[in-house]
């Protein structure tokens, strides 16, 4: 029987003890001592959220398929266990081997959202690892950060030895090899970090120095160690030799994913059909950092879908990507998977759809039309603003899609919008309820009275726009919390003026998280003292609304002279050195600037399949960049 790190009395006194026992079906459960390099992967949030993460499962697979390496896992202990561990001085342990995190060679922490930053400090603290990278010794693991937020690692730079910039598949094997060599040579920590700094895509913050102008902006950003390159290039998977597939089928993928013992956020298998997005919405970071769009091969997807379902017993398959229906072989794949799922009584989830007849047909097969709703994400209410953000979706397309959906039997529609995008006017905000009303009108026009089942329901939700690095809007000013709230009220009031107001519902989140998210998204190294101090005063689980101690954050900000004016509210000039400028994501800054100007001019940029706009990725000769564009108009 497996020996657990926590005694029965602790496990029986905390909420959901199954979070801490590991031993799930399909977990590898290797002996950490039996391999040359052992790592522990950390998702700095609770187990149920962490286990749902596909990136984690890919890295987990990548390490564990090697004979000489092992990857275990750890998640944030919930506040009840956190307190017990501090009181009784129990070191944080990995869930499978139940060994202390500090005993591993590598601690890989994924940063999926900014609001997890204090949880990262909790992980280090409970593990007994010094918070500051520079204070660590040979006895501590090398702490590597990754994930979407690592594209601006600077606010967290003090706490990480290394950041891995880009897609995990390409370089973790090299990391293992380098570590093996360093261990064999008995390298010092410094030597190991230098060796790691030479691996493409790896960034060792200690080896760089930042100086600032008097106004707080960056004056210089330089490498101080000959092993550390001045510019760090993001890593990504590309395959040039194939006609049908852009992602290599032999890349690690969790064909036998871990099945959590307690119900997770995603009690289902996740299949990534492609990476990247051809559309180029100007607010969207994923749309830029995952360029170019790369398909997975149809053969791989068929094999992977069946393997994942059979090896887990899941009864739901989630087909994922940024815009699934842009996947080139979408139709062929659906023609394969629909009958398979019907035979095996498996539900399919397909988010991010565009509404055309084929898709409605697909949706009709996989959803209970009476109960489910169709989702559109126009992101902006007016055509003017949709052009500014480059959301290639016209009002006609939306209304036409809705009409088809209503004809197909749906009577619930969900609409997603963002408030506070650059150049937004009052008119643009009012256009949100107007559009919702139009859709309701289409329903009453399309569906004759005798066929209506209850009232049509149009649900509009808004979120607040946060400018992100490596997007054309990275220079844009962000709104203040008051301005956001005012806009939400304007939507609400305008909603009430609509003819079909009884069919319209409006939701918005009014939380303080957005401003802090904005702060960290485009922050610099000066924010590390803020994060550390807030953590020391009890901030943790900031992503969990009721745990966010906003007043503490504000107080520390004031004490340290950190302002939203500087980080969030001002428009950044184009010649300012941005904290993340040392990273080369392939998409050029020139392209982002051009897109920022196009936004100002309300000029639409076509998507990658229609026409190449020269974003900079073409030089890598892969994915959508080398697709034959003549056949698609």
């Amino acid at each position, binding site marked *: *029987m*497996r020996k*657990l790190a926590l005694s*029965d*009395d602790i*496990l*029986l006194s905390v909420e959901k*003890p*199954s979070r801490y*026992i*590991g*031993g799930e*079906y399909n977990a590898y459960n290797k002996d950490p001592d039996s391999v040359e390099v052992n790592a522990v992967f950390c998702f700095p949030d609770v187990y149920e959220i962490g286990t749902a993460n596909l990136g984690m499962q890919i890295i987990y697979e990548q390490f564990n398929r090697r004979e000489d390496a092992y990857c275990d896992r750890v998640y944030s202990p919930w506040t009840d266990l956190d307190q017990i561990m501090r009181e009784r001085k129990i070191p944080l342990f990995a869930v499978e081997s139940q060994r202390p995190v500090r005993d591993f060679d590598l601690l890989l922490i994924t940063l999926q959202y900014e609001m997890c930053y204090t949880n990262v400090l909790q992980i280090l603290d409970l593990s007994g690892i010094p918070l500051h990278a520079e204070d660590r010794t040979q006895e501590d693991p090398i702490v590597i950060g990754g994930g979407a937020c690592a594209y601006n690692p600077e606010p967290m730079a003090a706490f990480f030895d290394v950041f891995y910039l880009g897609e995990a598949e390409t370089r973790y094997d090299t990391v293992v090899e380098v570590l093996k060599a360093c261990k064999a040579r008995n390298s010092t920590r410094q030597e190991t970090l230098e060796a790691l700094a030479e691996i493409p895509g790896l960034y060792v913050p200690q080896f760089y120095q930042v100086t600032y102008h008097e106004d707080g902006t960056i004056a210089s950003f330089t490498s101080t160690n000959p092993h550390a390159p001045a510019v760090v290039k993001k890593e990504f998977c590309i395959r040039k030799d194939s006609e049908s597939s852009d992602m290599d089928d032999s890349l690690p993928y969790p064909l036998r994913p871990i*099945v959590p*013992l*307690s*119900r997770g956020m995603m*009690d289902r298998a996740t299949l990534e059909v492609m990476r990247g997005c051809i559309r180029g919405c100007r607010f969207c970071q994923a749309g830029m950092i995952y360029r170019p769009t790369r398909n997975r091969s149809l053969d791989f997807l068929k094999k992977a879908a069946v393997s994942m*379902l*059979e*090896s*887990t*017993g*899941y*009864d739901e398959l989630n087909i994922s990507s940024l815009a699934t229906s842009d996947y080139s072989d979408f139709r062929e794949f659906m023609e394969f998977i629909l009958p398979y799922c019907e035979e*095996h*009584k498996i*539900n399919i989830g397909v988010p991010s759809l565009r509404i055309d007849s084929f898709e409605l047909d697909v949706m009709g097969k996989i959803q*209970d039309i009476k*109960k489910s709703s169709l989702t559109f994400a126009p992101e902006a209410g007016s055509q003017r603003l949709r052009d500014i953000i480059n959301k290639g979706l016209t009002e006609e397309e939306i209304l036409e899609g809705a009409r088809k959906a209503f004809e197909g039997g749906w009577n619930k529609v969900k609409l997603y919008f963002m408030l506070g995008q650059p150049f937004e006017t009052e008119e643009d905000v009012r256009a949100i309820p107007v559009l919702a009303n139009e859709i309701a009108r289409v329903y009453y026009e399309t569906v004759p009275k005798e066929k209506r089942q209850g009232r049509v329901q149009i649900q509009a939700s808004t979120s607040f726009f946060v400018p992100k690095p490596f997007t054309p809007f990275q220079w844009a000013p962000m709104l203040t919390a008051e301005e956001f709230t005012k806009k939400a009220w304007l939507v609400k009031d305008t909603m009430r003026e609509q003819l079909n107001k009884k069919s319209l519902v409006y939701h918005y989140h009014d939380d303080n998280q957005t401003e802090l998210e904005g702060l960290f998204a485009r922050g610099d190294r000066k924010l590390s003292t803020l994060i550390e101090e807030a953590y020391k005063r009890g901030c943790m689980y900031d992503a969990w609304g009721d745990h966010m101690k906003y007043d503490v954050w504000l107080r520390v900000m004031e004490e340290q002279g950190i302002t939203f004016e500087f980080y969030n509210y001002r428009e950044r000039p184009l010649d300012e050195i941005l904290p993340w400028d040392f990273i080369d994501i392939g998409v050029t800054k020139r392209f982002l600037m051009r897109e920022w100007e196009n936004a100002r001019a309300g000029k639409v940029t076509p998507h990658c399949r229609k026409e190449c706009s020269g974003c900079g990725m073409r030089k890598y000769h892969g994915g959508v960049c080398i697709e034959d564009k003549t056949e698609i108009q």
Partner: protein
Amino acid sequence: MKIRLKFSKQGSLRFIGHLDVMRYFQKLNRRAKLDIKYSKGFSPHQEMSFATPLGLGLSSDGEYVDIEFNTVPGKEELLRRMNEVSLPELRITDACLLPDDAKNAMSLLEAADYTLKFREGYEPWISRGNGEGVFEGIEDFFEKFEKFLSQPSILTEKKTKTSVKEVDLARQIRLYERREDAVFLRVDTGSASNLKPELVMETFFRTCGAAYNELTFTINRDELYGEESGRLLPLIGYGTDF
């Protein structure tokens, strides 16, 4: 056709709750590629019913679930296929084919066997504020416990979510044995009369003037029974081999 499975739940799986066990079986059945009968409707589900939930922290060798199949392989084959894709700490140990008109496991339930072993470090004569000074040692413990059980009636309060009612433990305990250093209890279980071994110990400790620490024992459920013409029958005995 309805199949009754007997299974054990041990080790770290003691910390997963009943709902998670239900979900575990849904996936296990799929992994084993069993021809389970599904309910009709837009989102069909497997027809399964469990005998009775097991408290968090308890281990068991006597858990039961009834599952409806369309077709089923032979028993050995079924057990092999399921265990091949199950965790080491959850084993399917037996199975039987139920008659078509069989009552489900839950409604048959009348009694259950439990074995309570002293948890190392929590023995009530050692420390942890659960009876030191009251019990001098293991022999003294059993002496007092047997005396406690020999009373014609043992009244105590049983708290449920909504009410407090008085019960007589003496009428609910069907069998007691000392098995080396362990306590073996057979108690009423089911909708008519239900007793948990923890309540027996809690009451006993209170009678002795000691506080009961719920960690004193590790508790294992050994078997579940129904009652047929006055005799207890393990739930696996209600069907036939297949």
